[in-house]
């Protein structure tokens, strides 16, 4: 489909921020009708580059050409006028307004110059949706439609403003696998209609699925641009990280021992007081990883919170190595042998204004030798931290560095180091690789398998199907707060996908 003359060219873009060169003489071009993926780890400069293109940053060096003519992009307004549209990772929609209202926002058709012409607005939205084969209800309120639909509204917003170049910043981060497939369908339709798409991602399989060409950025530099044909995940990963990466987790078959975590008929309410976990029963044995797969918001968070004592259990029993801990406090559970890698490391896993030593002592600050008679011994914490930071290869700071100054991957290493150091019997890992890049994911995955081999019971809750499938020895699917299926490690993604959306409700073994 792609036409060879570039529609858009970025030449030698350099953008510096204090202390970092975010983009270092980056070249990039986009042909009409193609999907060109920008691939790179967090901090590689992908977002900076498209922000330059969208007029949000002015480059320190380099030029931007559209149809061979140099253009000046002083603001997003200029970019929009030149036919560039951007869909941000976090949607900018007004929840209480309808789809049509959101789409025309700022460029509303009016009557008498002041009144919103709702009929005309709706008509034009319908028209544009039809021409790009979008299935969307213009009357629906944003708050009542799903994330995938909301993303379509964002895309339509850009198209409505005459975009021919569409920038999608990590568009699949918020989508389920099914929704991602639908998005890819939409993107194919758009490119057939002559639109061009810049697709930002750090997920290799997606890039290989949707992109015509891939440009890999690493530490602000363009490493290579290559066509999709012939590219492999391994090759892309190596370009991204700069070294050989093992994507497949290498693990021996599990040798499960006695059950360490037992959950019986667990019922938990969510924050609004509605049932979120409804009669869940399962067990995790020593030396196995049990994965819980499911679409976000089906009770995973409440399940983790109930296991770790952060929310009340309505009904049911939780046992650690046979001991009933259902009514125990969070601290008692930690002492009982639960380790918890929380879903949200910045909100919960770390105190960003604390030093790494203090963060590492978050559970054990009150125990010998870290304190005595209520007196903290900061020196001990620093010693412990120094050892763990080395052992877990945490980069970017020492024991007295603030946690906030570390990158996401290194922050997660600190969390994992802390939890593993306490030698837990049960390790509960909630989305342990969320927002991490390939190198860090590899580390986390290997570590989880190591912990399994040490004889711990690992409960892995993740929204990433790939992660669940490559790590788990058994997979449970949660839907609507219930376990709706149990599978072995060789289940297919399709089977899981169907179960995750409530397609099957087979009895749990």
């Amino acid at each position: 489909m792609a036409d060879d003359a570039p529609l858009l060219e970025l030449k030698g873009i350099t953008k510096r921020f204090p202390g970092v060169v975010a983009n270092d003489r980056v070249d990039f071009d986009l042909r009409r009708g193609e999907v060109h993926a920008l691939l790179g780890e967090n901090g590689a400069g992908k977002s900076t580059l498209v922000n330059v293109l969208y007029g949000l940053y002015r480059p320190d060096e380099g030029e931007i050409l559209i149809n061979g003519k140099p253009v000046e992009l002083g603001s997003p307004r200029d970019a929009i006028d030149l036919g560039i549209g951007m869909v941000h990772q976090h949607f900018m929609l007004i929840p209480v307004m309808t789809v049509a209202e959101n789409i025309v926002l700022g460029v509303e058709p009016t009557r008498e110059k002041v009144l919103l012409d709702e009929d005309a607005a709706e008509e034009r939205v319908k028209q544009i949706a039809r021409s790009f084969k979008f299935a969307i209800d213009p009357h629906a309120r944003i708050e009542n439609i799903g994330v995938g639909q909301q993303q379509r509204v964002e895309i339509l917003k850009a198209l409505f403003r005459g975009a021919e170049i569409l920038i999608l910043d990590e568009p699949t981060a918020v989508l389920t696998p099914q929704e991602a497939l639908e998005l890819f369908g939409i993107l194919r339709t758009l490119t057939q209609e002559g639109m061009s798409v810049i697709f930002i991602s750090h997920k290799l399989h997606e890039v290989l699925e949707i992109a015509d060409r891939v440009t890999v950025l690493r530490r602000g530099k363009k490493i290579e641009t290559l066509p999709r044909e012939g590219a492999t995940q391994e090759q892309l990963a190596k370009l991204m990280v700069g070294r050989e990466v093992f994507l497949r987790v290498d693990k021996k078959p599990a040798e499960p021992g006695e059950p360490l975590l037992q959950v019986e008929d667990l019922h938990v309410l969510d924050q609004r007081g509605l049932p979120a976990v409804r009669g869940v029963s399962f067990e995790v044995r020593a030396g196995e990883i049990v994965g819980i797969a499911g679409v976000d918001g089906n009770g995973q968070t409440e399940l983790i919170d109930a296991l770790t004592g952060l929310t009340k259990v309505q009904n049911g029993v939780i046992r650690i190595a046979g001991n009933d801990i259902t009514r125990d406090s969070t601290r008692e559970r930690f002492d009982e042998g639960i380790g918890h890698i929380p879903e949200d490391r910045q909100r919960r896993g770390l105190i960003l204004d604390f030093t790494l030593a203090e963060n590492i002592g978050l559970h054990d600050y009150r125990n010998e030798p870290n304190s005595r008679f209520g007196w903290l011994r900061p020196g001990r914490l620093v010693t412990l931290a120094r050892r763990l930071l080395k052992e877990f290869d945490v980069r970017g700071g020492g024991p007295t560095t603030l946690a906030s100054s570390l990158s996401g991957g290194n922050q997660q290493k600190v969390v994992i180091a802390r939890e593993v150091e306490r030698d837990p019997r049960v390790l509960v890992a909630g989305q342990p690789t969320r927002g991490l890049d390939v190198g860090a994911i590899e580390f986390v995955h290997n570590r989880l398998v190591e912990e399994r081999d040490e004889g711990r019971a690992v409960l892995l809750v993740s929204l990433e199907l790939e992660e669940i499938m490559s790590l788990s020895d058994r997979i449970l699917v949660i839907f609507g707060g219930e376990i709706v299926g149990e599978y072995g490690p060789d289940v297919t993604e399709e089977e899981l996908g169907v179960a995750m959306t409530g397609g099957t409700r087979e009895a749990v073994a």
Partner: protein
Amino acid sequence: MSVTPPAQVPEAEEAYSLRTGAQELATGFLVPLAATLLAFLIGGLVVLLTGHNPITAYRAIFEGAGFNWPYEWLTGQDTRASGRDLQQTLRTATPLILSALAVAFSFRCGLFNIGGQGQYWVGFIFALLVGTHLEGLSRPLHVLLCVAAGILGGAFWGGIAGFLRATVGAHEVITTIMLNWIAIYGGKWLFELDGPLQGAAPSLPRSEIIFDSATLWIIWSPYLHAGFLIALLALVVYYVVLNRTTLGFEVRAVGFNAEAARYGGINVRKSYFLALAISGAFAGLAGTVDLLGVKYAVDQSDFDTNFVAFTAIAVALLGRNKAVGILLAGLLFAALSTGTSSRNLDPDVFEPALATDLATMIQALVIFFVGAELLIVYLWRGTRRYARLGRPPAEEPAPL
């Protein structure tokens, strides 16, 4: 209706370094210092408008606060006048520092304790009860009992707010303000004519005077009492408790990120209760040293005029809730107050009436600029970014 997009950041990591950078700058001395200097600068312009020389006016205030004492002492001059001035400054700073600690300790736990004044009075009254009873005790013992009673009273009053926050989640800003008025009106009732604690003089709405054995030692004649040393000690205690004890670890953890603290196994509710009770103890101590070192008794009208713990909120703010910062900010606010009092300021240089207004104005400006510190940091960074980008980020139109 317009949509404001979240600020565009280059990459997540960049945003962090920017944020922590700004925070480090803000939590350091730079911003409070800049705010203070700016306040004095603007105050100076106002002095100029009134037809006076700001430099001589500031110099007079400086000397009025007794800050020229070290120079005079070192050069062997007559230090009697400056010594008295400095004593007054230090004496005024004492309850300011202690009450500021009451604000700061809660703040480090993520709580805004507006109730210092109520805690001050309850501590004051508890100490008064002990000080007007138990005749015949040795002085150290009597003072010690008064101090203990004052600490207990303040902790009790702060603890009520803490208890309510911990159990039913009642917001401490509301409850501490309400408790302030209960303490103030309760105090007025206690010491009114025919009130339960009115003293022996039948026509005076006034308490008994504490026994001599309950008064604090004068450590620098004639004005400065040992309460100033207690305030210094309290600063050390504050620092040590926060940074060297498990209790302080919990308080700071809760203050920075209550959710993460809870995840870590810390009992957040207990921390809320303890933080407000300990805050109350500091404020109660402030009331106690005022009683034992300065007032020796209380007039009913004092409840209408003494708002030292409210000023102390500003002291804590300017001091960035740090021990050293609170000491310096407390001295500054005390100096502004004594330096401009009609007793200390040379009326030929600057009329004390004007000077008092100037002091209030400078205090207000300092609070304003410290409160606006994030704005200052933002403008500072913004102009640097402006230079790079060619425009400030705030003016970017919303994309789409």
